[in-house]
Each structure stands twice: as structure tokens, then as C-alpha cells.
């Protein structure tokens, strides 16, 4: 830590305590440590100070103090992110949004809700489902993740194949800019005039400011939902079934795939009782108007059987549907039963490359002596390989990291992406130059400069190297906050 940065932070802390009161500003180190990581626990940084924001004005106050002294700030929702996007800054301010959690306006007639950023994803669905509506983005963490976090990460989920991502469901935000100004963008009406700022903001991982209110679409609950589990001998067979379903013109609400190792883990953890001897299972869900679902469901069953499925189970009711989903949704945590440590990847490939890429991943794992479990959104080619290792074995972490990196290379070789829904964050910033050219990244950072000329909004995330935005006339700059992004405390 440089002396300048520490001094600037001290000044900011003083101002925050004055303006917000000591109960909203956490300075005690033990309490600050509570926030040292998000869902990616491999990265830990104790924040310089924590602000428990009670409303938009608190956020603006905190950010203005940061802007005055060029101190970095990081916003944090529920802290469930898997890429270290909410990793704090050791000489910065962590603005915790989780106490702002009111559904301000559940306007089902207009199919919109105005929510605080700390509102839990499933909380909004619970609030609106009695009226026949829900919030469509459904990341696996939906019972604890915040909508503000969904906006920052452009969260998807199992059902985004049909319903799209968070970016397709946000029509307005209130933004606190990196200068601490409060700006209203969009609203309940679609297509606000001007540049599509919402398109830029959603998924920008907190690097363009802090959203203090979001106006989101509410989606009508489908008339009918039908879910099946199909067991296959091999991943290739399951992949062929997926291709056949898509080729038939069916857009299921979800198509999820798990391989034998993932099934083994899920069985050990939640006893989901998936068919014995399965080398792969598909979970397929259709939703929509009853007559359509009935017809398409029969097609899906037939296509699975034609592709070699030896057992198809159809959920007869909500309980059976929940049981089918239980295995899939618990898969990440379940691998803890079969491996002390694991790395989750989030690469994307064109769906048609699935069988080839899965074989290549298996070969990568074998040659490195590392086990890889596969759980993924088969419909849109979003892989979640779980690279298993035992951190207590010397060299195991390195081998696992190598395989995980190799998987991302495979995704890029096939024209895909390094992240489908978890975000770049702190974790994958180093991989960005493998996906984008220097000019691509420069241009993105030019947009960042428009929102955050000082580079204080969540620095060190998304981009591997900072871009200086050019001197502002009459402003004095200390050490650039990006120059030292708390690396010393990362382990």
C-alpha cells in the first residue's frame, strides 16, 4: 500500500463517518473481514472500509467522497458472484447494497417492477407470482443473489435459452455515476431515446457506476410446465438428442446436461436417484400454453429415445419436478463430496461443437491426471466444467489451473467465449486478451472512460490492464488506483 493511498482512504473514512454516521460505516478490521471475498473464495482482500448503504443518497455520498479523493469503490450485493467481481479493494470503499431490499413497485398490470438493488432474485418472483408473474432470469443462486448483482453481471440461468438474460429484462435504472451524480436512465416504457446506456451498463460488472434502482420486466407465468429427465449411455448420445431437439424447431425453457462424474457427485450429495448406469443425463423443460407444450413434449420424448436414451422419466407433479432439478441445481456444491477442491469454469462454445469439445476436455483432463465433471446448459453451449483437485497435494492446484485454462482455450478455438454468465471479474481478466484484440479492449475502456474518467469504479476487474483516460484539465492525480489493485493481499 502506498502512503498516498492510505492517506486518501483515511480522509474518505473521516468524511463518510461525518456524513453517514458511524453505524453505516464499518472500520473495524474483524467486521471488514466478513466481506473479504464473494462467491469466488480463492481471492480475498479485506476492504479498506465498508459502507452499509441504506438508500441511493448513501451510495451517492460514498461515491462522491471517493471521487473527491480518487479512492476506488466496489459495490457488493449478496456476494454470490463466481468471478470475484465484488472482490474489495484494500485501499478502497466497499459499498454494500444488501440492506436496500424493498420491492418498491410491483406493477404487474404494466409487467414491470421497480426494485432496490439488494432485492433477492427469488424475492421478486415470490412477490409477483400470486398475480401470475415472475422475474425470468434464474441463476442457480437465485434464492440468495441480488437483482443489483444480476444487473452487474448480466446473469442468466437455466431458463435463459428461451427467456434471455438480465439485459433483456431491464428497462430502466437509477445510476450513481463514478462522479457521484444520480442519473435516471430509462423507466417502465421500452426503448428510451439516445444511446442504449442500459445495454452498456447491464453486465459491466460495476465498472461504470452503481445501480441504486432497477426497473425490470415481469414475465407471465406459463400455463403449463413439463419436465423430463432422460438418461443416456454416453455424452455423445445426449448431445445428439440436444441437437435433434433444437433442429426440430423446439425452444425448450431449459436443456441441462450432466456427465457421469457430476451425476455421481449429485447422488452422493442429494440422493436424486438418477437412473443407474447413465453416462449422461439431460434435463429438459418445456413451458408455454398447454396445447403447444403437450405436442412438443411428445416430440422431445421421441427424439431422446431415438438418440439412444434408455430411460425417460417425466415429472408427474411439482414435487417430482423439484427432485429432477435438485440433482442439477446442487451439482456445484455436490462435487465437494467427491473432491476437496474444485474450479468452476464458465466457457461457451457453439452448441454444435459440444461432442467434440467434451472429448477434448476429457483428453485434457486425462493427460494432466485431473478429473473433470461436466454440468452445463446444453441448449446454449454454456459449459460448467468442474475441475477437481486436492489443494493439499503439492502441484495439484497448478495442474488444475492448467486444465481450467486449457478448457477456455478450447472454447475460444471453437469461436466461443471465456464466460457465459459468471462474468470476467478479477478471475478471468487475464484471459480477456485471448478473446479480444488490444483495439477491442481499448475501445471498451474508452467507453469506460466516458463513465468513469478517474478509473475508481471497481478497478482491476474485467480488463487486464488499465487505460488512463487522459488528464482532466485542472485536476491533480495521485497514484493511479489501478496501478496497485491490492494484489499483495490476494492469495
Amino acid at each position, binding site marked *: 500500500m502506498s502512503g498516498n493511498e492510505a492517506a486518501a482512504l483515511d480522509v474518505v473514512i473521516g468524511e463518510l463517518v461525518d456524513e453517514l454516521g458511524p453505524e453505516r460505516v464499518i472500520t473495524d478490521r474483524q467486521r471488514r473481514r466478513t466481506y473479504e471475498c464473494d462467491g469466488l473464495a480463492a481471492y480475498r482482500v479485506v476492504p479498506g472500509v465498508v459502507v452499509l448503504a441504506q438508500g441511493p443518497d448513501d451510495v451517492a455520498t460514498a461515491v462522491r467522497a471517493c471521487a473527491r479523493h480518487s479512492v476506488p469503490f466496489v459495490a457488493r450485493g449478496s456476494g454470490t458472484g463466481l468471478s470475484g467481481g465484488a472482490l474489495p479493494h484494500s485501499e478502497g470503499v466497499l459499498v454494500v447494497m444488501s440492506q436496500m431490499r424493498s420491492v418498491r413497485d410491483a406493477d404487474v398490470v404494466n409487467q414491470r417492477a421497480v426494485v432496490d438493488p439488494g432485492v433477492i432474485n427469488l424475492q421478486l418472483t415470490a412477490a409477483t407470482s400470486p398475480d401470475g408473474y415472475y422475474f425470468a432470469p434464474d441463476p442457480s443462486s437465485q434464492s440468495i443473489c441480488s437483482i443489483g448483482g444480476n444487473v452487474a453481471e448480466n446473469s*442468466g440461468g437455466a431458463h435463459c435459452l428461451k427467456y434471455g438474460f438480465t439485459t433483456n429484462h431491464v428497462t430502466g435504472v437509477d445510476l450513481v455515476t463514478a462522479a457521484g451524480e444520480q442519473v435516471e436512465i430509462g423507466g417502465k416504457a*421500452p426503448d428510451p431515446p439516445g444511446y*442504449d446506456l442500459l445495454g452498456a451498463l447491464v453486465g459491466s460488472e460495476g465498472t461504470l457506476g452503481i445501480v441504486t434502482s432497477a426497473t425490470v420486466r415481469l414475465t407471465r407465468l406459463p400455463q403449463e410446465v413439463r419436465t423430463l429427465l432422460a438418461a443416456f449411455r454416453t455424452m455423445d448420445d445426449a448431445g445428439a438428442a440436444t441437437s435433434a431437439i433444437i433442429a426440430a424447431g423446439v425452444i425448450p425453457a431449459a436443456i441441462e446436461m450432466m456427465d457421469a462424474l457430476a451425476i455421481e457427485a449429485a447422488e452422493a450429495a442429494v440422493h436424486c436417484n438418477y437412473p443407474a448406469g447413465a453416462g449422461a443425463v439431460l434435463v429438459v423443460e418445456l413451458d408455454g*400454453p398447454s396445447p403447444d407444450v403437450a405436442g412438443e413434449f411428445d416430440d422431445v420424448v421421441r427424439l431422446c429415445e431415438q438418440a439412444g436414451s434408455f430411460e425417460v422419466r417425466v415429472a408427474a407433479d411439482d414435487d417430482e419436478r423439484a427432485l429432477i432439478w435438485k440433482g442439477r441445481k446442487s451439482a456445484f456444491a455436490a462435487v465437494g463430496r467427491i473432491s476437496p477442491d474444485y474450479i468452476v469454469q464458465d466457457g461457451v462454445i457453439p452448441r454444435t461443437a459440444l461432442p467434440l469439445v467434451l472429448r477434448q476436455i476429457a483428453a485434457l483432463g486425462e493427460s494432466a491426471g485431473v478429473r473433470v465433471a461436466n454440468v452445463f446448459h446444453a441448449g*446454449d453451449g454454456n459449459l460448467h466444467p468442474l475441475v477437481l483437485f486436492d489443494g493439499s497435494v503439492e502441484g495439484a492446484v497448478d495442474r488444475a489451473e492448467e486444465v481450467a485454462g486449457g478448457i477456455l482455450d478450447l472454447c475460444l478455438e471453437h469461436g466461443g467465449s471465456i464466460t457465459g454468465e459468471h462474468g*470476467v471479474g478479477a478471475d478471468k481478466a487475464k484471459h480477456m486478451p485471448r478473446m479480444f484484440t488490444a483495439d477491442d479492449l481499448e475501445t471498451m475502456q474508452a467507453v469506460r472512460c466516458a463513465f468513469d474518467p478517474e478509473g475508481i469504479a471497481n478497478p482491476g476487474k474485467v480488463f487486464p490492464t488499465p487505460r488512463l483516460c487522459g488528464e482532466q484539465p485542472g485536476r491533480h492525480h495521485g497514484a493511479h488506483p489501478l496501478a496497485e489493485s491490492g494484489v499483495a493481499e490476494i492469495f
Partner: protein
Amino acid sequence: MADLQRLAETLEQDGGGVRDAGPADAVDGVPALAVARPTSADGVAAVLREATAQGLVTVARGAGTALDWGAPPERVDLILDTTGLDRLVEHGAGDLVVVSEAGLPIAALSETVRGAAQELVLDLPPDRLAGDSTVGGALSTGVSGPRRLQRGGIRDLVLGATVVLADGTTASSGGKVVKNVAGYDLAKLLTGAYGTLGVVVRAAFRLHPARPDRAFVLATGPLADVAARARDVVASQLAPAAVEIDRPAGSDVAEVAVLLEGTGGAVGQRAAAAAALLSGRVQDGPPTWWAALPGVSTSSTDGGSSTSGGGTHAKATATLTGVAGLLTAARDAEQRYGVGVALRGSAAGVLHAVVTGTPEATASAIGHLRGAATSPREGTVTVLRASREVRAALDVWGPVGGLDLMRAIKRQLDPGRNVAPGRFVGGI
């Protein structure tokens, strides 16, 4: 002074050319000096770099079907004709993705993907489609049509884009997979930007499987009644692909048309249910005005106030419940200001209006339509196409939230204001 010789030299490798501009090359009345027609992204970068170095102002042009949308540019030196970039780069049928150069007509792209029983769900107005409106033009004008209700607008379908900035920098964002959150989604920022951030040279889109069967359900009634019934269908579990409303100028009644897509008998069942909700009738084909801008139709049954090519064309947005207010505001504006206001579009709250009348009366009518929403967050009216006199009489864009941020983005990507200056909100 422009050095056209040097501009032409930048295209030697590309094979494209530079010519003097003619009267037909004027952009909404603003004359140009020259037209460059590169055939590759590298060619676009080379010619734009040189043009900007010479201090020239460049405006990109596709087929020009909406070149007079948005404000006219302050000045035009070089027209960058993108129609030489007309390759379909990749159609990943199994992945439901298409990648195309910017100058390819949407109609040509659609024909290719139709071969795999797929479609890019843009629902362009038929006259723009027939005019060979390009991928870049559709993107830059941010089009959406009837099926935006379910599939979203073009901003929801674009997966990635490559843009050439004023200084010749070529930058890509997004990708060609449906799911991708790596880096900023600049493709959305370019969507609807009227070419003010750079020249789009390539874009990737999500496709949908074409639904084999469809049915339309139509009903006519008093304005508020039609709006309420349209809302009932939107709020139903019938999963309508589109719910469109048409209110011809001078009319006390409006028509609602619902599109249901799917397979076989299922569509028939849903159409019957929708007909019951609407007290409407089922038919196989669309109404004559389907997807067309108001005042334009493919037949003469479109009421007596056809304003094709004339009038002031505006885009009006509203909340679902606000659509009713917009319809009655159109009628009130006619009575108050002696204008004609044709209104047509999606019950999702994105409609187009064509206002006919004197510039002063048109300005008053637009103001009245704006007043239908309680705040700009609940609805806006932006003027897309208008005469100089009308533009002078009103605020074309209306209130714009986040304008300072938009200006900052423009400054970052086009600091010298070398591409399409003046064409966008706040004089951007």
C-alpha cells in the same frame, strides 16, 4: 479541402472506389462531396482513417431506406457506402446464429436462413425490406417490429458487432455465441446510434426457428376498448407472438391484430381462445397494415388518410396501460390542432405515429402526445422523420435521460466529431 485522390488510394488493396457525390447522395438535404464504396472492413478502416485525418465528416449509408431518420447531419463530406460489404459470413444453422457484413440486405440474409427453416425476427417495415435495407442500417436505426412483444427488438437479438471508429480503429465486442458476458456489450451501444459512434461493418445475430403455423385474430372497436382488450391478450397465457394496434388518422375506432405462432392444432386452439378474449375473428393472413409504418399499407383499405412519404414520422413509447392514453391523445390532438395523427404499433408500448399538418400544429400535436405519459420514464415521443420547418418548430428528441453520459461516450469514441455529427440526441 478534401483530397479525393488520397482517399481513393486507401482503397487500392480493397478494390473499392471513390467517386464524386451527386445530388442523389445528399443526406436529408445535406449535400456530400464524395462517395466511397469499400468492399471490406479493412477498406472501411483505411478510408475512414484517411478521411478523418483530412478533417472530413463521414456519414455511413446502407441502402438509404431510413437515411432521413434522425436529425440531418451538420455537414457531410464523405458518404461511406457499405453496400460493398455484402457477404454473409457464417450461418451456423445448428447454433441458430448468423454472422453478416453490414451491407448485406436483410431480405437476402433472411432468404438464406429461411433455407434452414430459421428467421431473424426483425419484422422490418415492408417498404424498407423491399428497399434492401441492410444489416447495418437495421442495427443503426434500432428497428423493432410486431414480434418484439415476445422476441425483443434488434438490440435483443444482436450477439456481437464490429465497428470502425472515426480514427480507423476496428473494434469487436460480444461474439457469435448466444450466451456471452465477456467485456462490454458495445453492440447494444451501436444499436440505434444512427452511425454517430462509428461505422458498423459486421454483426452477429441470434436466429429463431421459424414456426410452421400461424394464425391472426382481429377485432375492431372504440380506442380505449381496443387498448384494454389488447392488454388482456398480452396478460394472458396464450403466449402471443405479437399484439398490434392500428388507429388510422381521424378515426374513433382502432383495430387490434394478434399473431399466434406454433405448430398445427395448438395454434388453432390458442387462436380460438384469443378470439374469445377479443370478441374477434380468426384469419390465416395478416391485416394489410401489418408491420408497416402508419399511413402506409399494401392496399387501399387503410382508411382515407394515406400519408405515405409525407407527414412527420415519430416513435412513441408507453407502458402497457399507457397505450390507451396514447391512442386517445392522438384523437385529442387532431381535434385540438387540426392535424391528422395515425398511430400504429405494438401493444408492448412501442408505436409509430405519422402526423400531418402545418409545422406549428404538428409541433403542438407531438407535444400533446408527449403529455400522454406522466413522465418520460413512462413514455417518450421522438421525431424520426420531419421537414426542416417541423424540426425547427419542436424539440425532436424530447427529454433524454443520461444525456451527459451519452455526450461523454461520443467524445471518447469520436472526439473530432468526424462521423455523422448532429444526427443524434442533444446534437451528438
